[in-house]
Each structure stands twice: as C-alpha cells, then as structure tokens.
C-alpha cells in the first residue's frame, strides 16, 4: 500500500491497523518491505494473518 507522505513512521501502526481491519481482525502482521516508486513515493509491503 502507498505510504502517505505526511505520515511519519511513529504514526504508522494505527494507520496500518485500520487498513488491515478492512480485511478482518489482525492476528499477526508486519511490514516486510519498503519500496520506492520512480517518483519517490514509498510503498509498504505487508504480510498478515487476519481473522
């Protein structure tokens, strides 16, 4: 998912939980990679188990 430019890493957790809750209740999850687009925007790759 695209990482909003105005969201520091210190505020990622609640934002990510909200995104995960769209798929179910998160049980175990982590950011497993951070990739940069050609335009400098960052993409977060997550792996998660949701219920």
């Amino acid at each position: 998912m695209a990482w909003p430019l105005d969201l520091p890493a210190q505020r990622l957790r609640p934002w990510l939980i909200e995104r995960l809750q769209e798929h179910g209740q998160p049980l175990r999850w982590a950011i497993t990679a951070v990739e940069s687009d050609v335009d400098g925007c960052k993409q977060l790759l997550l792996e998660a188990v949701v219920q």
Partner: protein
Amino acid sequence: MPQPFPTVMLVPTGIGCAIGGYAGDALPAARLIAAASGCLITHPNVMNGASLYWRDERIHYVEGYGLDRFAAGEWGLSPVRRQRVGLLLDCGIEPELKQRHRQVADACRATLGLSIGPVLETDQPLEVSLELGSSGASWGRLGHPDALLRAGERLRAAGATAIAVVARFPEDPESDALAAYRQGSGVDGLAGAEAVISHLLVQHLRIPCAHAPALSPLPLDPQLDPRAAAEELGYSFLSCVLVGLSHAPDLITTASAARVGSELWMDQVEALVVPEGALGGEAVLAALQRQTPVIAVHNPSVLSVSAKALGLEGTVLSAASYRDAAGLILALREGLNPAALQRPLESLT
C-alpha cells in the same frame, strides 16, 4: 547498581535471523541484555532451545501476541511464583509420539518440580500447513482453529493457568529448505505457523501460551550447524516451553489501583532491542509511537525494513552487535549519554 532498566528484546520468528533464527540461539544474547538491564521482557522464540532452556528471574517470558499487546500499552505483566501449565495435544499426533510428549511433561514434573496438567487432546486434528511469504518469512495456517480454541477453553476451565500446545507439523526430511536450515543458512519453516497457533490461543484466552511442534526424529546430519543442534537432542521440543511457561507472568488488562508489586506496563519500559531489518513489526511500531527508545542491532535476516527505509535515522540507536547493545543499555541505565562514548565528539553550538 542502579534501578532495573526494563527492556524488551525481540527476535521475530521465522525471518531467518543470523542470531535467533534457529533453536533458541538468541538465548546468550538475551542473558547478556538481561544482565545489562536487570529486567528483560522477551518471547519464546528467543528463549526456547528445544531440550535446552535457561531460567533467569530477570527475564519475563511473554508470547508474541501478548508482547504486541504489552508494547501497545493494552496489557500489563504480573509476575507469579508459578503457573499451572496445561498440556494441549493435537489429536493428529501419532500415539507413540504423543506418548513421548506425555513423558516429557512427566519428566518436568519429576525432575524440575513443575506444576503440569491436566493433559487434553483436541477433538479434531489441527491440520497445520506451512507457507512462505513473498519476503521469505515463514507463515502457516490451521485446518481447524476452532478445535484449538475449544481445547484451550477446556484446559483453562480445568484449572490450567498457562497452556503448552503441541501440534503435529507436516515434515519433509528430504527437503532442501530443511537441509539449509539444519546447516545454518535458511529460514525456520515451522516458526511462522507456530506463532499463528500461540497467537490464536493467547488472543482468545489471555493466558500465557507457547507452542512446540511434534515431529519425527531426523536422521543424523554430520554438517549440522551448532545453532540448530538443540533441536536434535531428543524426541520433542517441549521441555523449554514447559519451563518458560512455568514462570511466565500473568497477562493483565487492567492496572491495579496503585500498580502494586512488580507489575510491568509499557510506560515503564526504557528500551526495545530488535534486529535492524525487522523494524516493521507491530511491537516496534508501537514502541516508536510511544517514543520508547529503539536499539536496532546488526542481525541479518530475510527482511530489510531498516531505520533508513522507515525514515528513522537519527531516531533509532544502532548497535553493531548484541554486545554493543548491552553496552548501550548499561550506559543508559547509568545515566550516561551514549554519544559521550564515541569520537569525534562535536562542540556544543
């Protein structure tokens, strides 16, 4: 000696860490961090060495889901004198292997004096399957998670205050991945599924739980890496789990009025120690959110979610090794500014 400096140490399960990615091989590092801090909160992947274990009153053994809730400030820890550890066996385990595990429980009662029991079986095989994520981290799923939770509820109702669960895991003794792991160059393919099992139980029951896989003994491997060797000492990986759970703290969701005794909450934690490429886990993000100092240790794994990747350079303290991390913790515990220990030391402007 100054007051204890409560520290959380994480070595995430199933990501192939050079230290802690095998059979409890982060235990020496945990002992060192416990000695430096005087109070360490860590999880079974760090402490469990199959037949090998280490007991240290300064170390609090907390399963990963409970540790995530602790880091988020939602749950606290309340140390206890002992837990009564119920044993939950997957009914899909073959009779002889099941008997081996019952004998491990008996051995821990007879030889270590632990309180273990009752022993119950699931009413359906758990049917564990193993998976690898695109990152290379191991994950897994259960065919019958409800059977796990039902058995956990029965154990708790029967008086267990903690639960050791043993599930039959699929095995392929000829696989390249297993050979790589045994020879010290691969990811622990079982670890991700183990975490899912214990997370489910802890989320549902809110009592200490940990998992040991049931597997057939492997043929001798002359190239066995010392870090994986603890898993080849016997017929089960259960004894470390029983020892760890026997003195694991209770998981509490409400602080007592005056936080009496030795209750621990995240706002008392002074530092969190984690491999430098594993900063994307929930507990680390929770620590960053709470502005708890994070020490990122050089400990290569399949992940590269580093301080640089997350824009945290200058926020996260770097340590070249666990020896270095222990030195940082000791300095902080003594009230020393770690910057004073490095050169060059810039003038104040």
